[in-house]
Every structure is written in C-alpha cells, then in structure tokens.
C-alpha cells in the first residue's frame, strides 16, 4: 500500500458540488503533478463537512487545516505554500488561524462519524475505520435476541421524527412469524430545508448498508430496500457503488462471513411525493403503486411490504447502529438526556450565519445551536423563532431559546424533533406567512385519500390566504383552531394529523401577529404585500426623479423642488423605487 505524507480532503456533498468542488479536486491533481507531489499527497473526495455556507470546503491533513470558500484559482497557492513549503494559507483558513473553529466545538459526531473523513466511494476506507466490524461481531458472536436487546438498552429512538424506540420495533418484527420478512430504509427525506440523510448517504453509504444487514439478522429478513428520493442523484449514485462493492467483498449477498446468513439490498427511487415519507405510503410506493397510506393496525411489523412483516427505519437511525454494536449500549446511553439518548443531526438553515449540518448531543440548548455553533443571526437582526419538524412541526419562539433539544422538551413546547430540519427566522419573518407556506406545502402534498386532510387543510389555507391578503374577518382565527383540532383527530396518516401543527404553534406564540393582520390589517414584519405600502419621506426627498423613472407602472409623480409622491392605487409594491433611491428617502410601511 502506498503511504502518503499528506491528504487533501475535498467536500463532495451537494452544497459544495454546486459551488464547484469537483473542479477544485481536478485542479489539485493538476497542481500536485506540476510540483511532483502526486506520490506524496493524495486528493480524496469526501462527504459533507457540514459547513455548507462556507463552501467549497477542503481540509488538509495531517494538520487538519480547514480552508473555506476556496476558488479554483486558490488551489495553486495552497499547493505551493502549504503542501510544498509547509506554510498555511492564512487568508483562506476557516474562522481564524486556530483550527478549533467554533462551528465544530460543541458538536459530537456519531452518525456523521465518517462524513468528511473517508472517501465514500471506497469500501476499503470504510473498513479501515472499523467498517463492517459490527456486522461481523453480530453474525459470529451474537444471537438475534442479543442484538435486539443491545439496541433496546442503548435507548436509540427513531431519528425520522416520531421517535419510536428502535429496539422495540425490531422486537415486534422478530416476533412476527412468516417465511419472508423485509428491512426497509427511509431515505425519502422530504422536509423542506432538511438534508441530514442525504449527507450521510453521500458521505458514508456503507454504514447504512451494514446496519440494514444487522437489522436483517436481528429480525430474520434476507431482503432490504432503500427508498430514496430521485432528487438526490449524488446519493443514489454513491449508494449504487457501495452496494456493488459490498457484494464484491461478500459483505452483502449469500453466506455472509461464511455464517450462512444471506442479505441483499435493492434501491427504489421515489418520484416526488412527500407523503411517501410516511411508513405505510412508502411501502405502497416500493410496490410500484400510488403512494397512499393505509390505516394502522395492522402495523408494518405484522403486515408491511407485500403484506409481510417489515421494519422501516430512517437513514440516521441506521447510521447509529454499527457504533452502538461496537462501543456498547452503555456508551451510547451515556450521551444525551434521560429519555433521549445519543446525538441528533440537524440541517441548520434560514437566517443564520453558519448554515450547514451539525450533530449535537441530545439536550444541547437551542441557544447553543443558534449562537455558539450557528454564529448568530446575520446583519445584526434579532432572533425571532426556530422551526423544527418541517410541515409537521412547529416553532420555538425567542423566549424559549434555552429549551434543550430532545424529544420530550420539543413536544412540550408544541414543536417536535422531526427529522432534523432547523430553520432560523429573524424579525423580518412574518409568522402568518410561514404558517401559510407550510400549509401550501401540505395542501399540495396531501395524497387525497382521506377528506380531513384533503378538504380540511385546503379550507385552512383559504382562511390563511384571506388573512395574509388583508381580508381577514373576525372569527377567522377561531375557525382555524376548530379545523386544526378536527383534522388532527380525524386524518388517516401522520401527514394529515400533523399538518395543522405549524398553524397551531404560530398561533400559540404569535397570536398578536395574527390579530394585527385580521383587525388592523397590518403585517408587523412587513412581508405580506397586500398590507404594505411604500411611502416617500418628504423631508429626505431631493426630487431627483430617479424613483419615478424606475417605477414600472408609472405610479410616482412629482416635479423639481417638490417631494415626489407614490400613487397607492397604481403601486404594485415591487420595491424598485426603494432600491434605487440614492437618498434612502423611501420606506416600506407596514
């Protein structure tokens, strides 16, 4: 084996790929060759490092120096300065010259342990970091009951959102008697603003395959399916490579490790339906049908895919399994809080400085995520709320910023853990508008099978459209509440039952904003167009006429030495005048 004195890790996640990281890796190869370093330095394309906002990101080992926002032109300098002369390129270093960048300080990487550390397209690198050892241990030293007991004692709960104890789920499936059982992986990550599962699949696909084989052994299944969104081409491709490699090495297929245990995995592509993230709908979709949910019971552990006992876990849940087997359930249970063990990966986005992927021990507070890891809110704005759980979740207002992030605390404040999307909002975000945004999403994604979801959410959306359109009526808020309560109680599946949550949670913490929209016809955040108007401050106006020339509808009139005025009837609220005014004399008035 060839030994290299240094490694250049280039992030190959979707975020960095979009900002040109493949070209950077190519350029490194070129520049290394030029300097005769190709046998001393190895370039590795890895999964996501997490700091997507600062992408493209590269890390140079052995120093562990992280360079951010690297451009193709910078590669020459990094090669000549750092790799040839051993001097860091300070202007590109993340944060400051020290390596302990704040973003990573409070994180703890368990599920993401290999992301950004190994080449996801190489099974050897995964094996070098203890890969497939857990599977070997399980197959040669443990009984299925012992495996299930280990997972139960670790306290691992499903990372897909609902938080059902994983070991218990496996035990139910183990106890179901049938000649055929299935192991499924939910990689249909549909929550807008969430990309945890994608990053794991892109950065460490083998960990999921290994865990699925372990699950297969535990429940007595020999066939696995990974249901993944077609919108994730890079992840799909890396999974395909990983499955082929594992088959070649005899780690999937017949007679694994010579123990007589067979296990095979197939990939099934989704086709753009959010409801397919719901477990019964997902299984119907794997069967090649319209992805409509069906009533439970019977639960999938009894009758799932093709009416056979099935377990379904999400990507992040699986990624935790090999570590639990190797390090022991006690180690895992020592992380986190009383009832939420381990870590959780969040995709942090929205109005925050360090958008990206973070993994934190359960119990970390929202404040630590926003300010210590996330680096605070851009442009000196105030933190208003954080949204978790996507269209099924709710928001956590600024007053509860010290809430610890775990399943129970989040449920208590009316939100939920969800799959890990964490959207930060600042004072410029209108909470009624956000509630409307999520409802638009669920209305569009409702599969139409049950009336409470199909009709109920639509009626709620109509009311919200009326409110944000400046036509809210007295009683609208109460109507929303009644509808929400009934939809929650009567909808068939998780999608419908949780659809009203964004409305209920914003009503709980930001009722005054709703009231301002309905009674005063005002949008306090200045987002809802219909209630907003632009005005020219007569004292500041220098009558230059630039605004009038830039108005696309000719709504601004005026003459020399007299302040200009906007005709509110004609104004389409495009904001062009405010943007163009050189004296900043035009204001948005809510």
């Amino acid at each position, binding site marked *: 084996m060839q030994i290299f004195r240094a490694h250049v890790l280039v992030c190959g996640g979707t*975020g960095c790929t979009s900002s040109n990281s493949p070209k950077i890796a190519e350029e490194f190869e070129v520049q290394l060759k030029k300097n005769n370093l190709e046998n001393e330095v190895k370039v590795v394309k890895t999964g996501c490092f997490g700091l997507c906002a600062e992408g493209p990101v590269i890390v140079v080992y052995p120093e562990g120096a992280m360079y951010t926002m690297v451009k193709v032109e910078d590669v020459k300098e990094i090669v000549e300065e750092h790799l040839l002369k051993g001097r860091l390129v300070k202007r590109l270093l993340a944060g400051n010259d020290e390596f302990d960048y704040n973003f990573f300080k409070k994180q703890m990487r368990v599920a993401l342990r290999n992301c950004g550390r190994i080449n996801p397209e190489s099974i050897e690198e995964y094996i070098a970091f203890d890969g497939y050892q857990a599977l070997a241990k399980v197959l040669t030293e443990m009984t299925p009951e012992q495996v299930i007991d280990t997972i139960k004692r670790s306290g691992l709960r499903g990372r897909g959102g609902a938080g059902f104890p994983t070991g218990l789920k496996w035990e139910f499936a183990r106890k179901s008697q049938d000649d055929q059982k299935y192991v499924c992986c939910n990689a249909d990550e549909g929550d807008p603003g969430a990309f945890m599962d994608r990053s794991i699949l892109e950065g460490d696909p083998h960990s999921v395959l290994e865990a699925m084989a372990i699950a297969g052994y535990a429940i007595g299944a020999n066939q696995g399916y990974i249901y993944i969104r077609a919108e994730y081409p890079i992840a799909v491709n890396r999974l395909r490579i990983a499955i082929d490699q594992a088959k070649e090495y005899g780690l999937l297929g017949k007679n694994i490790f010579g123990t007589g245990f067979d296990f095979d995995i197939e990939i099934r592509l989704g*086709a753009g*339906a959010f409801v397919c993230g719901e477990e019964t709908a997902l299984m119907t*979709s794997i069967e*090649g049908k319209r992805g409509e949910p069906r009533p439970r019971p019977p639960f999938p552990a009894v009758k799932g895919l*093709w009416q056979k006992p099935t377990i379904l876990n999400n990507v992040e849940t699986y990624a935790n399994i090999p570590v639990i087997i190797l390090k022991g359930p006690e180690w895992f249970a020592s992380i986190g809080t009383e009832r939420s063990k381990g870590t959780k990966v969040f995709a942090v986005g929205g*109005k925050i400085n360090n958008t990206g992927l973070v993994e934190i021990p359960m119990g970390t507070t929202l404040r630590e995520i926003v300010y210590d890891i996330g680096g605070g809110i851009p442009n000196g704005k105030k933190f208003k709320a954080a949204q978790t759980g996507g269209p099924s979740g709710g928001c956590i207002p600024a007053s509860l910023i010290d809430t610890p992030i775990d399943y129970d605390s989040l449920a208590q404040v009316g939100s939920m853990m969800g799959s890990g999307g964490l959207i930060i909002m600042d004072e410029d975000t209108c909470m009624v508008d956000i509630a409307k945004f999520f409802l638009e999403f669920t209305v569009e994604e409702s599969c139409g099978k049950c009336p409470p979801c199909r009709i109920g959410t639509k009626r709620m959306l109509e009311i919200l459209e009326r409110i944000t359109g400046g036509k809210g009526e007295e009683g609208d808020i109460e109507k929303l509440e009644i509808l929400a309560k009934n939809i929650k109680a009567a909808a068939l599946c998780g999608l419908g039952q949780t659809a009203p949550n964004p409305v209920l949670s914003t009503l709980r913490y930001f009722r005054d904003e709703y009231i301002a929209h309905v009674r005063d016809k005002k949008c306090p955040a200045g987002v809802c167009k219909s209630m907003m108007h632009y005005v020219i401050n007569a004292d500041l106006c220098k009558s230059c006429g630039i605004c009038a020339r830039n108005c696309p509808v000719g709504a601004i009139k005026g003459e020399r030495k007299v302040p200009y005025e906007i005709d509110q009837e004609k104004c389409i609220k495009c904001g062009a005048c405010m943007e163009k005014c050189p004296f900043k004399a035009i204001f948005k008035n809510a």
Partner: protein
Amino acid sequence: MSVNKCCCECTDVRDAKLQEIIDKYKDTKGALIQVLHEAQELYGYLPLEVQKKISEGLNVPLTEIYGVVTFYTQFSLKPKGKYRIQVCMGTACYVKGSGMILDKLKEKLGIDVGDCTEDRLFSLHACRCIGACGLAPALMVNDEVYGRLTEKDLDDIIEKYRKLDAESNQ
C-alpha cells in the same frame, strides 16, 4: 404515434429502447415506478402513447399507470423546455426570498409556473427542497445549481442559456 415523431426519424430507436427497459424490469416485483423514470428520461415526458406501451409490456392496466403518473410530481404529461428552470421552494430558500425569485422569473420569461416558453427553450417550475440550503435562495437549470441568487443574476442565467442554445444551433 404522432407525439414522438421527430425530424430525424428517430422514433424507432426510442421505441426499441423503451422495449429494452420493459424487458429488463418485466420480472421485478413492483418495478412500475422505475420503468416510468427510465421512460421519462428517454422521451422527456410521459405521453399517453408511451404509457400504453408500458401497460402492454408490463401487463398493468393503463388506468393504474395513469394513476401513478399523475400521483407523483416528477412525472410529467406535458413536454418540458430544453432548459428546465426549477426554483427551490424549500423553507430555507423561501425564508431568503425564493418566492420573489420565482415571481421575477415569471415576469422575465412571460410564463406561469409549469409552462413552457413559446420557443420551447425554457420551462419554469417550483420544486421541492434541492438540499442546497447553504446556498439559499437557489435554483436549478437542468442539473446545474445556481445559489445565493439576487434578481440581477436571473438575467445573466437566462442570457447564458440563450447563448448556449444559439451556439448549439450553429
């Protein structure tokens, strides 16, 4: 089969390929969605004629196929533009103004969401989170992602593809 006739008489090539796809998946349990994915890649969309062929090939009723095609947003009954502009409507992008980006594109292209420009060059779509949240607001033109968008970037992007098209026609 008037829909997939093309000037270079390539109809047969695509139809033969479709048959290959059908044969490949014939014995796989529940493979309809995979077949539709590959067929759409071949034709660009899924006209009724193509669905009929799949129905006959897989021995699945046409009604069921139509039901599946219309259920999933990734399958299209309408042809799409040469360059498909997909504006990300994920929460992170929305909070950072992707709604405004979509409005401006409608205005600039003179079409509504889901439609195609008359010259078939661009079609405009609002899509689900593409996972480039670090680059919000973002859009995709075919497989190329553009991030940290401002209104100004939109003209450049449209112009870039108009040029690309002009070059490819030369």
